[in-house]
């Protein structure tokens, strides 16, 4: 099926099998490998992206369902190669260890901060509930988000 999506401001038109998950489309067809596949069961959140501004896990969405949508991935959140304040805060707070969950954490935190620029610690934890860090570095991740929110 013909699918046209805008990812981080660039429009891509591709012929896509209906069975292809959006995460595979992003990674394999568009070579946008920033979004990760962690569990492929909808639990870990490493594949979190924004579709028309809504945070989703794109291993539970078909690429054809995104036809016409505007998608934001971790590759698109910084501008002109500069880290966003959130990314800078992750750096300063050592909010990543192996880094595998980081793209999903950044997208979930980005979605949170857009809606709620000054989230409480509890709100941050709730917002990141769908993102699992198997290094269990949650403390520093929450601290990093909290520091940007102030």
């Amino acid at each position, binding site marked *: *099926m013909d699918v046209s999506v805008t990812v981080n401001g660039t429009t891509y038109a591709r012929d896509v*099998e*209906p*069975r*292809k*998950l959006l995460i*595979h489309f992003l990674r394999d067809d568009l070579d946008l490998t920033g979004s990760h596949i962690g569990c*492929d*069961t*909808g639990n870990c*959140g490493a594949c*979190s992206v924004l579709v028309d501004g*809504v*945070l*989703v*896990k794109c*291993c*539970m*969405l*078909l690429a*054809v*369902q995104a036809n016409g949508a505007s998608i934001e991935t971790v590759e698109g959140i910084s501008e002109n190669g500069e880290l966003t304040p959130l990314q800078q805060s992750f750096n300063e707070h050592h909010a990543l260890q192996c880094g595998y969950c980081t793209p999903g954490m950044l997208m*979930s935190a980005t*979605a949170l901060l857009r809606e709620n620029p000054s989230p409480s610690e509890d709100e941050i934890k*709730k*917002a990141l*509930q*769908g*993102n699992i860090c198997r290094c269990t570095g949650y403390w520093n991740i929450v601290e990093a988000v909290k520091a940007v929110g102030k």
Partner: protein
Amino acid sequence: MLLREVEYAKPGSVTEALELLAANDGARALAGGQTLINVMKARAASPDMLVDLNGLRELKGIELAGDGTLTIGAMTTYTEIMRSAEAKARPILGEVCATIADVQVRNRGTIGGNVCSNDPTNHLPPLMVAVGATMTVLGAGGTREVPAEEFFLGVYMTAAGPGELLTKISIPAGKKDGFAAVTLGAEGTCIANAAATVNGSVRVALGCVDAVPVVVTADSPDGVADAVRAAGLEPPSDVHASAEYRLHLATVVATRAAEEAASR
């Protein structure tokens, strides 16, 4: 995971969706996909065609009537229910939706998908039974109104049969509701859950203990645990809880839900 080959259709209306479902034996409606896509990965379901209901405005939205009755479109997401001013007419709805999975799942998952999948560990089937919801099912033969108590027929089975769609859910006004669950992790897989309403007496719908929600009634929250024990339940045993332990949890969550309902 690469899914088995599947056709995809995006109907422009509910009528067209019904035609597609009726014309294709192996077709299944795709709601939020937060369950279906995963069971397709596991090959636990292998539909030949997905009829995507996303984008059908007829199935979206929350309306509040003058008498307080809420009508919620089947494709309304958990997040939309949580944020809806109208849905506050029955506060328990948004409160329970807020305990389902996580932000991402709540942004996609729908009330209709939750009840139509009728996983016995889902929160919304017992909640719909407790609040006395009415399900509107549309098929080739027209529209049927099905009380929630008659909607859930078995594990993964509901009164919305092949070629039919749940289009909306009506819920009467009310505030004296409660809900309690024991889950793995804060908001993970459910071991036992219960929804309660108080309207003179206490009415509790139990999840996780049978294929469909089980209703027990009592004069007051104090009598709920005995009512659960007297219900002759034979809950399943699994890796998370033995039948005996699950039955114990059922008395606990039923009592908690009833106490919450009575306190409002």
